[in-house]
């Protein structure tokens, strides 16, 4: 197991290097100009100076190496410095700066992180909490009306795109419902709201209801399918018959024996979905105007802010690779029958 983990960990290095190269080259060799959005009145020689200032006159491979050093050495060091209020070395390092705001990209990301984690993370947790019981009951009562309804709802859940459910909810609960009614919900997420007392907490809950519901429905639809399939695989196994023959109560058989074994693949699916908590909610954040990481990416893309987009995309890629690794290792730990050699 240790050997396997180590080998997988080593394989992530070339993977990440490859992905970083793809992202870097894609943005770097693309036919667009970061100075293209500047006013046309700027004379060409000044424009050339701006380009030199942005470091665009260096060869590609050199810029790639510099970018790698910034991303893997400078930014982590800076984060550590800020977290523990210490200075490592002389403390002056060239950070990855956004073209548009001229502020360090990592600071922008740290600013946006709480909203994304709150809304999207909460929806993931809610989705899992809904999905697990539904999956268990659907499998236990296969082909019952509950199972049929569950199948239908989950089919809708992953067929109807989040940008339609979101917009539909806004039309119903923000447009059609009168704004003084209890069932009116704000369609725009207000980040400046500070939770200080019960009233503001209520407000915070109300503005989170719709985005969380939209994403939770989508997540729950997928996870409940996995849970159901996994439960069905286990319910017909011999050990279940043995447990029943021993005279264990049905509750113990299902909730202890079957559920524990069925959760193994589901846990890995949940782990694989975590990177989406950070990056995959781009659309929902856009619909409800949550100013999280997804919206930051969209702003960066629209403004051709290459360092910002490079860093964000690469962070998403790191998360995907990392959680793939976590899921694989977790699977090995949870299911000792799987032998990695």
């Amino acid at each position, binding site marked *: 197991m240790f050997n396997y983990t180590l080998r997988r960990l080593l394989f992530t290095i070339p*993977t990440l290097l*490859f*992905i970083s190269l*793809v*992202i870097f080259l*894609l*943005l770097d060799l*693309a*036919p*667009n100009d970061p100075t293209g959005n500047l006013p046309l009145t700027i004379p060409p020689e000044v424009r050339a100076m701006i380009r030199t200032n942005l470091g665009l006159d260096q060869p590609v491979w050199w810029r790639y190496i510099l970018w790698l050093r910034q991303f893997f050495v400078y930014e982590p060091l800076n984060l550590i410095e800020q977290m523990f209020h210490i200075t490592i070395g002389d403390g002056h390092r060239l950070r990855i700066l956004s073209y548009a705001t001229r502020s360090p990209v990592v600071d922008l990301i740290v600013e946006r992180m709480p909203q994304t984690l709150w809304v999207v993370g909460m929806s993931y947790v809610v989705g899992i909490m809904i999905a697990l019981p539904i999956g268990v009951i659907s499998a236990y009562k296969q082909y019952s009306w509950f199972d049929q309804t569950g199948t239908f709802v989950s*089919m*809708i859940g*992953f*067929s*109807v*795109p989040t*940008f*339609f459910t979101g*917009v*539909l909810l*806004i*039309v119903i609960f923000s*447009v*059609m419902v009168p704004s003084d009614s209890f069932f009116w919900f704000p369609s725009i997420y207000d980040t400046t709201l500070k939770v200080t007392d019960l009233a503001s907490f209520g407000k915070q809950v109300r503005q989170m209801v719709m985005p969380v519901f939209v994403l939770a429905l989508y997540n729950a639809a997928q996870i409940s399918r996995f849970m159901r399939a996994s439960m069905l695989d286990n319910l017909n196994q011999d050990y279940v018959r043995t447990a029943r023959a021993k005279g264990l109560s049905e509750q113990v058989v299902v909730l202890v024996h079957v559920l524990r074994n069925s959760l193994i693949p589901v846990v890995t699916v949940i782990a694989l979905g975590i*990177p989406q908590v950070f*990056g*995959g909610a*781009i*659309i929902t954040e*856009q*619909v409800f105007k949550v100013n999280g990481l997804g919206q930051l*990416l*969209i702003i960066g*893309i*629209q403004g*051709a802010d290459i360092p910002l*987009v490079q860093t*964000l*995309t690469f962070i*998403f*890629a790191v998360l*995907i*690779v990392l959680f*793939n690794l976590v899921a694989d290792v977790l699977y090995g730990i949870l299911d000792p029958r799987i032998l990695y050699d």
Partner: protein
Amino acid sequence: MTDLNTNPIGEIERITVSENPRSQWWDVWAQFKTHKGAVLGMTFFVLIILLVLIGPYIWTLAPDRPDLLARNKGPSMGHPLGTDQLGRDSLAQMLAGGRISLAVGVVAMTLSLVVGSLVGVLAGYFKRLDGMLMRFTDLFLALPLLPLLLVIIMLFRDTLRAAFGLEAGIFILIVFVIGITSWMQTARIVRGDVLALKEQEFVLAARSIGTPPWRMIMRHILPNVMSPIMVSATLGIANAIITESALSFLGLGFPSDFPTWGRLLFDSTNFMTLSPERVIWPGLAISLTVLSVNYMGDGLRDALDPRIRGR
């Protein structure tokens, strides 16, 4: 693979008794028909395709013709689905948009299927290529797809538009990026099936009479991995339609002049308080199409699974 409960002698008798032998695809169809959701989904999907193909000939109003005297109108006899902020007829726009949406879905799916099957078959059949191709697939799976799609479209949109014209340029770009970012699952499934097939006797027999690899793949391997490819095809259409509408919804897909369903939805969100019903139609069209395709895929998967078929 073989079902232990069946009586082999009875099986042989059944086969000899039946007068006209039925092909495998006939069995698949018979099983497919028993899945109510799948039949309903297929009917609906065919209906949408017909509507989108024939509709513009029946409803001849031009989708891009503005009528400034009839802006933001609700449903009426002249405009069954109302009009938009420039007075363009929503029904005509829906029909025209559906054509593009479905075309993107089908073409992108075909591209991803070709790439996926090619990689899968090559990796499964040629041992030397296996490691390299599968590492390559893993690398692609680790890419953050939606952000990358957005980035690629932002960067190459204008170049391709200049090269191929306004509509064709964006169509090629979107189909291409969706195709090359969604082949990985197909490749993995096909590879697994090819690996299992290679161990079977008929492959050994074919090889022992000196069948060259090319003929081997075309005659013996590919026909036997058709089922996972077909299931991937249906899921691929659904995925491509959703991805395209998501891109259009984020403002990075098709422009408003050649709207797809996603773009229509995006454009109508700005007028949500004025005419909320305009949001419903494109969203409903996307959702129902994807739902029907997913149900079709579900039924197809059951029908093509030999363990379920014939039960």
